[in-house]
């Protein structure tokens, strides 16, 4: 078999599907291809984008972070509570994001030192993090005390919505971290061959803790944005389909659940696609009950392609690599 030398970036396919989707939805509804809808799409996409970016880091090491959705809720309430305690809105926002990364640090430390699979650790953390805001608020919404806080979710800079700007900044930083830094190489190495990484003297603990902390931090930022957009502290913000959509976005964007493969560009392409599909279904009045079904099928398709690809990748080599590392013990 002859393989063409011209390398087409893997994301090209996703962008193609994305444009096809845009076309289809535009034909189906005249409300789709409008500035108003574009901004709705981007704003909804911002939350998914942030947690998908963090998830990408975790997936690249061969882990998974199931706690991000709950973390969004927890950090949103923490921001609200911090403001009520009298802190300025921006201090509250930063504090909330830091609480998000603190949850990530705990995830990372437990995964590394106790050696429990990331799947289980972050699953447990999801429970903990979704309870905390409920306990704090007794399951009720709480009022936001500072008007200026709304700027984060609703403001504009040079005509661009602040959440979208935050996503762009986060994507650029993520991309630089992964592509141009020592840390980035170590993240890929960990997902590629953990034993080799360890034997090469890579600090596995620090790298693991970093990716979960980063994922937690971005979940915290997402929580602040979501709460600011609603302009009320609601203890279940982000615990809906967000986690589900963000993993779908990363996987569709070519980030491998088996670790070691994927790019920020791909993840962002995945976010655009998933957000477009979800938004498009709203615009053409597909019942919201159908949406997770469609996204679920998309995940399945994405993972099938991925596991085909990775079994082809490993087929010739001696290293057995049957199942995703997220399902196996992580230590050693």
């Amino acid at each position: 078999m002859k393989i063409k030398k011209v390398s087409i970036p893997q994301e090209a396919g996703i962008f193609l599907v994305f444009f096809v989707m845009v076309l289809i939805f535009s034909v189906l509804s005249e409300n789709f291809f409008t500035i108003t809808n574009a901004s709705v799409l981007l704003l909804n996409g911002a939350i998914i984008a942030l947690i998908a970016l963090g998830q990408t880091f975790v997936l690249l090491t061969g882990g998974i972070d199931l706690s991000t959705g709950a973390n969004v809720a927890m950090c949103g309430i923490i921001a609200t509570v911090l403001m009520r305690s009298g802190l300025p809105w921006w201090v509250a926002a930063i504090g909330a994001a830091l609480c998000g990364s603190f949850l990530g640090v705990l995830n990372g430390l437990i995964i590394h030192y106790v050696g429990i699979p990331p799947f289980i650790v972050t699953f447990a953390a999801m429970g903990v993090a979704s309870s905390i805001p409920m306990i704090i608020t007794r399951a009720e919404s709480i009022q936001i005390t500072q008007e200026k806080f709304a700027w984060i979710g609703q403001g504009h800079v040079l005509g661009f919505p602040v959440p979208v700007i935050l996503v762009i900044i986060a994507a650029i930083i993520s991309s630089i971290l992964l592509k141009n830094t020592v840390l980035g190489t170590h993240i890929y190495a960990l997902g590629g061959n953990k034993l080799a990484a360890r034997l090469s003297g890579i600090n596995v603990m620090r790298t693991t803790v970093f990716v979960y902390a980063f994922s937690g931090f971005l979940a915290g930022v997402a929580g602040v944005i979501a709460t600011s957009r609603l302009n009320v502290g609601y203890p279940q913000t982000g615990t809906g389909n967000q986690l589900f959509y963000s993993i779908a976005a990363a996987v569709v964007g070519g980030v491998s659940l088996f670790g070691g493969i994927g790019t920020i560009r791909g993840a962002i392409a995945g976010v655009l696609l998933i957000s477009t599909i979800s938004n498009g279904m709203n615009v053409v009045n597909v019942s919201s009950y159908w949406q997770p079904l469609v996204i679920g099928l998309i995940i399945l398709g994405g993972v099938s392609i991925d596991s085909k690809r990775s079994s082809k990748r490993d087929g010739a080599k001696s290293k057995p690599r049957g199942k995703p590392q997220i399902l196996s013990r992580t230590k050693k």
Partner: protein
Amino acid sequence: MSQQTPVIELKNVKKSFGPVEVLKDVNFVVRAGEVTALVGDNGAGKSTLIKGLAGIQPYDAGKIIIEGNEVVLESPRQSSELGIDVVYQDLALCDNLDIVHNLFLGREQSAIGVLDEGHMETKAADTLTSLSVKTVKSVRQKVAKLSGGQRQTVAIARAVLWNNKVVILDEPTAALGVAQTEQVLQLVRRLAAAGKAVIMISHNLQDVFAVADRIYVLYLGKMTAAVKTSETTQADVVSYITGSKTQENFGA
């Protein structure tokens, strides 16, 4: 020159797993500029001996003397700081990274955490050239795309790049075809010619006789022979390995 201090000297090292004694008072000497082969049947304790030197699995007792100084080896980092590098058969590389990143893994060149790709790329290419490696087209290829021999070459080049004094190869030719085996063996010779102490574990006596200066034989955890390749025969080495013969006056 041959009487200079050995690079590595192990004296009476022991290692047990529970009640099982895997290494029994093993002595082992490795010299610079030589290829020292370590042979023995499956389960003889070769890998265990090497893991002690690599710092992955410290010995229970005995002395480790590196260039005349007694040292403690309890982590891979300590070993690599002393210039000892192990090339593991297929554990050593990350398939998803390119050759440059694999060569520099764990020791990347960077300024404030930002990779110096240009510098690393040049140095990687230079190293491969210095080893007369010509089969690798681009140092930016993913390792997953390389053949077994090329992978082994990259793994060995890693040790060379870091100017290690000791390069340990655990069955470097086990999975390779004839031509690739030949390439790797030539590479092994070049390492020794460059003044490094090379330890090679192998089950293939033909390979051993082709490159080794000295042969050490482990039999059930005991060192039963240490011979110069030029002063022995394959038949003798086979009998040491199977335990049907022990080197006369060994240990003297």
